[in-house]
Each structure stands twice: as structure tokens, then as C-alpha cells.
């Protein structure tokens, strides 16, 4: 739509491109510096002292970090699988059917996206502490927060994000394709299996990558849903940062950074970024970055 409207070579044009380069520098300089310092042989986190891999070695030898990394991966995979299934079913129900209670369900599905992290975290804290108290009172069970409660809380927000992404894909799909399948002797299941599913697969993949990213990134909700024994990598690192920064944290951060950039590139590749589509996803991705 917009053509170039500032005259090439004019002061405005120079100022605009200057701003653009500065903004990119602002976006990427901290990331680049962090990567550099993670290889720096200096006990001080922000000073260059020659190349070393010792901080990465420390990470590998650090059993608590390794434990929390495993918790992170397990929580992310399990919560992604469950929320992809539930979120896709929910998206299908909302896009393809009319049923009683639909509007309430639609609103309920949006809330976890809109609600502030801190509020969601508080909800999980109170819910699990009440739940554990009641379980002890009624059944004499001795439960603690940990892997299960973290996974439950991640699914609670991931269902919504998956369903938003899948719905966008479903609503962009030509419904006549499903009718054509029925007309060509497919029953409902086969029409879904051979036509709808292949058509929305990129949406499901995108939703899954989004769920993985959100689960791997989450700090606030996880912090309130996890117990003293078991927690995820970001929460553990967050605790370390609050006690004081060390070059070890640089190395761990770079590993988390690499993981999330890999996921972004994967999801950009599956979603085929097109101008104009970027915005939609935005509405859905409102929260989760809002730690």
C-alpha cells in the first residue's frame, strides 16, 4: 500500500533510516554482548577477559541446573501435547459448530490470554495451596507442588494460545473443502482426517511451537506453581539472578536464548510470515511476554 514517500536523500529519509538502524542496534546489541560475555574468562559478568568455555562446563556439572532443565523440558513437552489436543478441539468446536454455552466458552478461552501474569500466578498459588490443604484434610494425602502443578498451570494458559492460532487458520480455510470431501463420500471423520487436518496442520504446528516457547519462557506463573524441590530452569535462574549475577548465568542465559531463537525461526518457517498477518497473531500473543 504505502510507497516510499520521503524523497530519497532528503533529511527526513536519512533520519528515518538512521532511526531504523539504531532500533535494530538496540534490539540486538544486548543479545550479542551477552553471548560474548558468556565466553569471557573473567569472574566479572560484564568484562572481557579472553575466551573460555568454563562457564558452559560449569553449567553441565551443575546438578541443580541440570535438574531444572529437565523439569523445563518435560513440562514443556507434556503441557504442549495436552494443550495442542485440547486447544485444537476447542478451536474446531468454536469455528465449525454452534452450541449452547458457546459464548461463555469463547470468553473463558480468551481470559487466560488477557489476564496479567501476576494475577494468574496468584490464582495458581491460592488454588494449589487450597487444593493441597483439602486433599490432606479429606483424604489424608500428603501432596506438594512440583512437576504436576507446574504442568497443570502451563496447560491452563497454553490451551488458549493454541486455540487462537488454530482458529485463525481454520477461519482462513475454505469451508467448501470440507463439504467437497463429504460430497466425495468421506464421512465426518475422514473429511477431518484427510482434508481439514492437513489444511490446519501449519496452524497446529505454530500453536505447538508457541506453547513450547511460552512454557519454556514462563517465570511468574511457574514460580507460584512450583515447590521447593522441583522447578523449571527460568525460575531457578531467576532465583540465581536475585542472589547475585555470575558468569555461569551468562552461559545458561545464552543456552536459553539459543533455544528460543531456534523455536522462533522454526515457527516463522512454518507460519510463512506474510505482511499483514503479523498483526493478528499479536492480539493472541498479548500476554506471556508480560512477565
Amino acid at each position, binding site marked *: *500500500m*504505502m510507497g516510499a*514517500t520521503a524523497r530519497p536523500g532528503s533529511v527526513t529519509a536519512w533520519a*528515518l533510516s538512521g*532511526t531504523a538502524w539504531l*532500533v535494530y542496534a*538496540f*534490539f*540486538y546489541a*544486548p*543479545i550479542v*554482548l*551477552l553471548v560474548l*560475555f558468556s565466553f569471557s574468562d573473567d569472574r566479572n*559478568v*560484564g568484562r572481557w577477559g579472553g575466551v573460555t568455555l568454563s562457564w558452559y562446563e560449569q553449567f553441565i556439572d551443575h546438578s541443580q541446573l541440570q535438574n531444572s532443565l529437565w523439569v523445563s523440558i518435560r513440562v514443556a513437552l507434556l503441557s504442549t501435547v495436552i494443550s495442542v489436543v*485440547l486447544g485444537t*478441539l*476447542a478451536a474446531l*468446536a468454536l469455528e465449525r*459448530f*454452534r*452450541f*449452547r*454455552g458457546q459464548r461463555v*466458552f469463547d470468553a*473463558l478461552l480468551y*481470559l*487466560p490470554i*488477557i489476564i*496479567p*501474569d*501476576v*494475577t494468574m*500466578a*496468584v*490464582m495458581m498459588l*491460592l*488454588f494449589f495451596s*487450597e487444593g493441597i490443604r483439602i486433599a490432606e484434610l479429606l483424604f489424608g494425602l500428603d501432596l506438594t507442588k512440583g512437576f504436576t502443578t507446574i504442568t497443570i498451570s502451563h496447560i*491452563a494458559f497454553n490451551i488458549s494460545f493454541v486455540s487462537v492460532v488454530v482458529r485463525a487458520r481454520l477461519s482462513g480455510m475454505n469451508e467448501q473443502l470440507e463439504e467437497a470431501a463429504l460430497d466425495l463420500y468421506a464421512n465426518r471423520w475422514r473429511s477431518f482426517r484427510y482434508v481439514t487436518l492437513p489444511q490446519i496442520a501449519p496452524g497446529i504446528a505454530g500453536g505447538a511451537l508457541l506453547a513450547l516457547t511460552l512454557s519454556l*519462557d514462563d*517465570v511468574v506463573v511457574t514460580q507460584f506453581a512450583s515447590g521447593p524441590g522441583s522447578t523449571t530452569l*527460568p525460575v531457578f535462574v531467576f532465583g540465581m539472578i536475585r542472589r547475585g*549475577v555470575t558468569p555461569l548465568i*551468562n552461559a545458561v*542465559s*545464552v543456552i*536459553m536464548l539459543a533455544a528460543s531463537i531456534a523455536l522462533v525461526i522454526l*515457527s*516463522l518457517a512454518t507460519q510463512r*510470515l*506474510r*505482511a*499483514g498477518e503479523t498483526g493478528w497473531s*499479536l*492480539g493472541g500473543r*498479548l500476554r506471556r511476554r*508480560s*512477565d
Partner: protein
Amino acid sequence: MTLTAVPPPSGPGPGGAGAALLEATPEFERAAARADSRRGFLLSLPAYVYLLLFFAIPFGIVVIYSVATRNTIGGTDLAGWNLDSYRRLAEPIVRDILFRSLWIAVLTTLICLVVAYPFSYFIATRTPTVRNIMLVFVMIPFWTNFLVRNYAWRVILGSDGPFAAVTEALGLGRQEILFTHSAVILGLVYGFLPFMVLPLYAAIERIDGSLIEAGRDLYASGAQTFRRVLLPLSMPGVLAGSILVFVPSLGAYVTPQILGGGKSTMLGSYIVVQFLTARNWPLGASLSFVLMTVMLTATLIYFRAGGRNL
């Protein structure tokens, strides 16, 4: 070569003509619609039940806690309901935190707006290929681990970090802004700038470039064209971006913790403190509830302004 050579298709269904085939009736039509509606409901059921159990009920518990009373040993008495904790929102200490969060969020939004506008305009006026490449490079930090991105600034702004080294080299002395409000705002701008860029870009990209030329053609100066043509037309993007930045800034927790030095700088941290250290759960719950109300209102404005289409 005709298709009549191949066998005719099977009859209308199993049993063929012999099966009792019925004429359509309104009852049948209604039953079919009901069956369809039931299918939809059953598909939604797993997620529905999950969210009721692990979202709606927890939310109800927060509301109940917000009207409960804190007892002397730091526990919570769920019986006697009252609005005491909401009344405490007017106390100077809470009020100060509310106002501080508010102005930090407003300032963050304004800075993002000023930085993102020319940037988005620049992207929107490139050729489609360049535009997409530039957008990808906005999306990458947008999706990168938030904690790590905040931590990177902690390293840069630290007392021995590159920021202090640069200011010293420039003859400004060793500047240290870590653990100040400036550092928190810097971190928030860094974290949420993409939220401003993307809707602004979408809004500007949609504007017909010839309108700008028409403005110039009608003897408007560059500034006048901006104020009278470009800005009004991109207003939906400005509004959407502002809400998308303001809302998470207001509830920020990680950034003030890492860059603000763990003091109760902002609302998010203050709420967490109520649960983890101060053990005043009713106050924390009522603050959470207030925060959520603000967010819901902002989101409704966002959707009203057509945010869904951005």
C-alpha cells in the same frame, strides 16, 4: 472414452433401495441440528472442563481471598468477608506504588510510541521483500526469552559493565543507572517495543500512499501532512500499540525485580511480596483483582478499536 463404461456407483446407502428411507420433516431437521450442536459441545468439553477446573475455580478463590481477613499469624481467615483489603488501596504506601506503576507504564508507552513510529513508517515504506526481512528481525527479539533479555541489560548496566565503560570513555564519568527507575523503564521499553512496532506497522502499511502525496500536492508541509493525514489514519495502530505496551508494563514483575533491584517498585512486585514475604494474602488478592480489571478494560477498548483486525 466415456465414463459410462465404468460400473455405476453404489445405491444411496447400505441396504440400497430396500432400506426404509424417510422423507424430510421439521423434526428430522431439528434432530440433525441438535446432533450437530451436541458434536460441537462435546468437542469443546475437554477444554471447557479443564478451564473451569484450573482457571475459573482458581479465579473464584482469588476473589474470595480478596474479601477475606488476614489473621494475626499471617494466615487467612476465609469466613468473615469484608472489603478491608480494598480499602487499603487508598493507604499512602499502596497508593504510591499504584501511581508509580502507572507513571512508569505511561512513560514506557510514550517512549515506545516515539521510537516505534518512525521505525514502523520506515519499514512500511520499503519494498515487500525488504519489509518482510525487517519484520522477521523484529519478531526474533519479540519471541526470545524475556527473562534472558532483561538479564542482558543487568549485565550491560552493571557496575563493571559496558555501559559504565562507555560513559567513562565519553568523559561522562562512570554512570550507573542499574536499580533505578530509569533502568526499569529501559528494560520495559526493550521488552515491549515490538508490541508497539507491529500494530503501528500494520496500520501504516494499510494507508494508501497516494493520500500522503495528495497531502503534499495540496501544499501541506511534511509536518502538516504527518499531523493531518498520516497520524489520524494510523490512529488505530497507535491505540492498539499503546494498549499492548501499557497493559503488560503495568503488571510487570520480572523487569522491576531484575533491573529495579527487588524493591517494591511496581505493582507486580508488590503483589508478589504480599504472598511470599509479607503474608498478606487478602491484600495481594485484591491487588491482583484490581490489576486484572484494568487489563480487561484496556482489552475491551482494544477490541472495540478493531484490534482483532490488526
